[in-house]
C-alpha cells in the first residue's frame, strides 16, 4: 500500500504551523529575483529551556489537614499581607497583597512550582475558604460575635504549605463582630449554602469593565447537580457556558440568570461573549 514506508525521510522536523507565511517566499523568488536570503522562513520560536529550579524541601510538619510544609529559602519565598476593611453593607472586604506569588486556580492539583498556588483563610483556627485572588468578601454571618483573628496562609498547587524556617508563609489581622446582624450581601460565589429554587448552587458574579468579582476561579460540582449563575454586567452582554453551549442575555446593570443541569462531566468555562471575559470554570465530576 501507499503508506508502507515508502516515504523514508532524512532528519526531519516536527515543525508545523499555519504556514501561510511561507507563500511569501514565492514572492521573494518571483519579485525580488532571489537576490537575498529571505528572513521570512520560520525561526526556532521561543526558547524551550527546561526548568531546573528548586521547589523547596518537604518537611515532616503538617498543617491541621495533613498537608506537608514545603520549605524554601527566605530570599525566594513568597509573602502575603492581609488587610481587612468593613464593608458598607455586610461583613468585611479582605485583601491579600502577595509578593513573589501569583494565584493559579487552573493548575491547582498539579505539582508545586515556585511562587504560585492559592491561599487558605482561617477564622481563628477554622478554615473558612480557599482563595484564588486578591480580594475576598467575608460575610458577617460567617463570623460569630466577639474578637477574632483572620489568617491568610499560602499554599502551593499540590496543597503543600509554603514555609520559611519551618514556619508557614502567612499573615493575620484582627476583626471584631460587634453584634452586627448578618447582612444580605453578595453571594461570594464560593458559598456552599443551598440556594433558592431548584438549583443545588447559585453563583453570583459581577462584571465591571474588565474586572470580574469574585475573581475567576473554579467550582467543583457533581454530575446531575443544578447550578444557577447570576451575573450582573455593567454592559449588555451574553453569558455562555462552554461545553453545554448554554447562553443567556445579560442586560446592562441588571442580573441575568442561567440555570442548568450538569449532565456532562468535564471542565467547562463560563464566559461573556461580548467582552470575552472568563468568569469561572465549572468542574463537573
Amino acid at each position, binding site marked *: 500500500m501507499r503508506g508502507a514506508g515508502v516515504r523514508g525521510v532524512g532528519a526531519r522536523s516536527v515543525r508545523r504551523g499555519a504556514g501561510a507565511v511561507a507563500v511569501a517566499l514565492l514572492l521573494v523568488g518571483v519579485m525580488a529575483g532571489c537576490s537575498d536570503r529571505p528572513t521570512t522562513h*520560520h525561526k526556532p520560536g*521561543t526558547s524551550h529551556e527546561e526548568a531546573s529550579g528548586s521547589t523547596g524541601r518537604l518537611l515532616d510538619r503538617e498543617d491541621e489537614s495533613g498537608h506537608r510544609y514545603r520549605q524554601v529559602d527566605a530570599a525566594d519565598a513568597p509573602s502575603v499581607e492581609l488587610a481587612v476593611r468593613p464593608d458598607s453593607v455586610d461583613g468585611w472586604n479582605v485583601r491579600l497583597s502577595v509578593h513573589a506569588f501569583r494565584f493559579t486556580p487552573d493548575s491547582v492539583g498539579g505539582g508545586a512550582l515556585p511562587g504560585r498556588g492559592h491561599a487558605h483563610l482561617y477564622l481563628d483556627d477554622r478554615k473558612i475558604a480557599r482563595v484564588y485572588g486578591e480580594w475576598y468578601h467575608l460575610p458577617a454571618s460567617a463570623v460569630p460575635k466577639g474578637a477574632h483573628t483572620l489568617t491568610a496562609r499560602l499554599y502551593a498547587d499540590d496543597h503543600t504549605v509554603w514555609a520559611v524556617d519551618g514556619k508557614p508563609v502567612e499573615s493575620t489581622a484582627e476583626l471584631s463582630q460587634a453584634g452586627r446582624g448578618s447582612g444580605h450581601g453578595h453571594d461570594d460565589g464560593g458559598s456552599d449554602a443551598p440556594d433558592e429554587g431548584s438549583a443545588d448552587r447559585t453563583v453570583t458574579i459581577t462584571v465591571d469593565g474588565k474586572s470580574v468579582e469574585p475573581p475567576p476561579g473554579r467550582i467543583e460540582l457533581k454530575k446531575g447537580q443544578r447550578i444557577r449563575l447570576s451575573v450582573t454586567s455593567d454592559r449588555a452582554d451574553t453569558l455562555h457556558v462552554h461545553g453545554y453551549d448554554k447562553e443567556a442575555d445579560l442586560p446592562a446593570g441588571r442580573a441575568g440568570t442561567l440555570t442548568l443541569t450538569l449532565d456532562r462531566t468535564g471542565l467547562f468555562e463560563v464566559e461573556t461573549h461580548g467582552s470575552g471575559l472568563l468568569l469561572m470554570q465549572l468542574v463537573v465530576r
Partner: protein
Amino acid sequence: MPWTRRLLAVLAALCATLLIAPVAQAHEERPVTFPDGSGSVPTYRDGPPDLLVCKKDRADFERRISGFPAELRKENLDLFEKCQESGFRHLQEAVDAVDEPGMNIAILPGLYEEEPSQPKPTGACTKLKAKDSALGYQILSFAQQKQCPHNQNLVAILGKKDLQIEGTGASRLDVVIDAKYGKLNAIRADESDGIYFRNFTAQRTTFNSLYVLAGDGFVIDDVLTRWNDEYGFLTFASDHGLYKNCESYGNGDSGIYPGSASDINNERGYDVPRYSIEITGCRSHHNMVGYSGTAGDSVYVHDNEFDHNMGGASMDSAFPGHPGLPQNHARFERNDIHDNNADYYKYIADGTCAKAPVDRGYEDGVVCPQISMPPGTGIITAGGNWNLYENNWVYGHDRAAFFLSAVPAFIRGESAWSKQADTSHHNRYAGNKLGVDKQGEARPNATDVWWDGQGEGNCWQGSAGASTPRALPECGSSRGDVSGGADRLAGEPTKLAALLVCADYDARAARLPAGCDWYGATGIERIEVQVALGIAAVLTLVGGVLWWRRLRTHRWATVACAAGLVGLALDVAGATKGLQAGYLPAVALLLTGAWWVGAGVVLRGERPWFGWVTVALGVLTLLDAFDKAVVMLPWIPLGPAWIRGLLGVVWVIWAVVVAASRAGEAPAVAEADEEQPPPTVAEAEVPV
C-alpha cells in the same frame, strides 16, 4: 509546459538553491517512516488491571476520592489496597514492568511528578553521539531513547505493544502527570503499536504533553493536555489513530497535531477507502491554533469544538522534513469552530515569552505563539489538496472563516520543477453554516473567505458572504462539481506582498512586522494600504502631469482622468481591512480602467503607440475588475493583476517621457499624426 509555468519553475529552482540550505530547523526528530498500515485501532479493555500505580499517602487519596460516586469510590479503595501491596509509585516503573503485549495499567487518583525520571542526565547519557537540533536538544535514535529514556521524556513507552494506560478517577483531572516544564515530553509512546490512553491529564512541558511517534494503532480517550511550549497532543507518522473526547489548551502551537498522519490516499480523488486518523468529540481552545496539520494527511475531523484560539484549525505544506507532503485529504465535518480571535502576539511584544517557560504564566492564560499566522481565522489551509470542509459551523471570526493559499514545493524542500505549483487544489468548502452559531443566532465573520487566488478545482459554497476575491468558484451539489473555476499558478500580487511582510516574524527575537495586521497594524500602518497609497500617489502624479501637458483641453479625457482619480482614491479605501472583501476594490479598478481607456483613446492621436498601450492597460484593469467581482477568467495562468502590474511599470516610465516632451518633439513614429491638431482628432474618437 506553458512559458509561465516554465518561468516560475526556473525561478523556484533558483530560489531553492539559495533558500533551502539555511532553513531553520526546529524540533527535529530522528528519521521515521510511516507504519506499514497493517495494524488497527485498539479497542478499550475493561477487565481488571495487570499493573497498578498509586501514591502511598492514604489520607491524601481518601480526600481525592471523597466526592466520587459510592461504587467508584469503593472500586478505588479496593485498588488502593492492592496497590499498596503490589503496585508501583510511578507510572514509569509500571511501564518498565510491562513484559508482554496487551497489558493494562491502572493509575489511581493522584499527582504523578515521576521524581525518579526528573534528574538531568548523568554518566553515559550526557555523552550520547547525536546531532543537536536547532533548539539545543539532541536528535536521538530509538536505541538511544531506550538507553537514556529520561533525557527528554518524563515517561517513556518504547516498543510496548497493545498497552492500555487508564486513570481510575471520576474525571481526567483526578490523575495528573505533571512534567513541570522539566522535560520536552511528558509521555512519549514510540513505536508502541496499539496503545490506548484513557482518563488522565498530562501537562507543562517544553515541547508536548502526549507524543505518539511511529505507531500503528493508538487511541487517546478522554485525556486532557495543557500548557506546553508547542503541542498538547502530537501524533506523528502514525496510522490507525483515534482521538475522542479529548481536550487541550494553553499551547504555543496547537492543541491537537496529527502531523504526518499516514499518507494513504495520495493520488486519490475525494472518494477514499479509509482515513488514517479520526478525531471526534474533542475541544481545543486558547492555543495558537486549535488543530494543526502540517502533512495532516487523511485525517477525519468531525464533531469537535475549536474555539478561542488565534486560529481554529490549519493545514499546511510549509515545513520541510514531514513525511507525506504536500498535505492532502483532511475531512472536516460538523465541527464547531468559533471565536478564534485571541491576541497572543502581545506576549511576544511585552517580553513575557522571553522568560523561561516555567515563568511565562501559561497557567494564567499566557500563550507564546511559535510562528506567524493570521489570527481571527477559522480554518487556514496553506498548501493542501483534496481537503473537504463540509457542514461545519464557523462563526465569530474577526478576520475570515476560511483562509486558503498556495505554498510552492521548494519551501518544503522539493525543487523538482513539476512540483512547484502542486498546492492548493481541489479544496471544497460546502454546506458550512457561516456566521451563525449552533442556536442559529447571527455571529458573523468579518470575512467568510480569504483566498490568494491560486490553484485548480477549489470551490466555496454559494452562500459565502464577504470574500476576497469577491468572485469565487462555486461548489456544485456533488464533490468535484465546480462552476466559475480557474487555475492560476500564483496568487494575487498584493496578497503575496502582504504575506511576505507578515512572514518576517521572529518569536525569539520578538520581531513583529510593523506593516502586518496579524500583529495589530491598522489603517495606514498596514502594508496593503501603504502599497495602494504609494501606487495611487505615483499614478496621480504621473497621470496629473500627463493630463496637464497633454489632455486638459479635452473634455472627455478630463472626465476620464477625474474618474481615474476617484478610482485611485477608492483603491486606497478598498485596501483597508474593512472594505477589502466587498465590491469596492473592483469599483476602484473599474474607474481606473476607464481612465486609462479614455485617456489612451485620446492619446492615440498624438502618440499612437503610447495611446494603444494606455488603452491596453485600461482593458487589463477592466478585466481585473471583472475577474475579481464577477467571475474569474478561466484559462489564464496568472491573474490580470500580474500582467497589469508589469505593464503599469512600463506605462509610468513612458508616461513621464510623454508628459515631459514638448509638443512637436514627438518621436518619428508619431510625426504623421502630429500634423493634425490632436484635440480635434481625439474629440471625434472618444466613445460616449
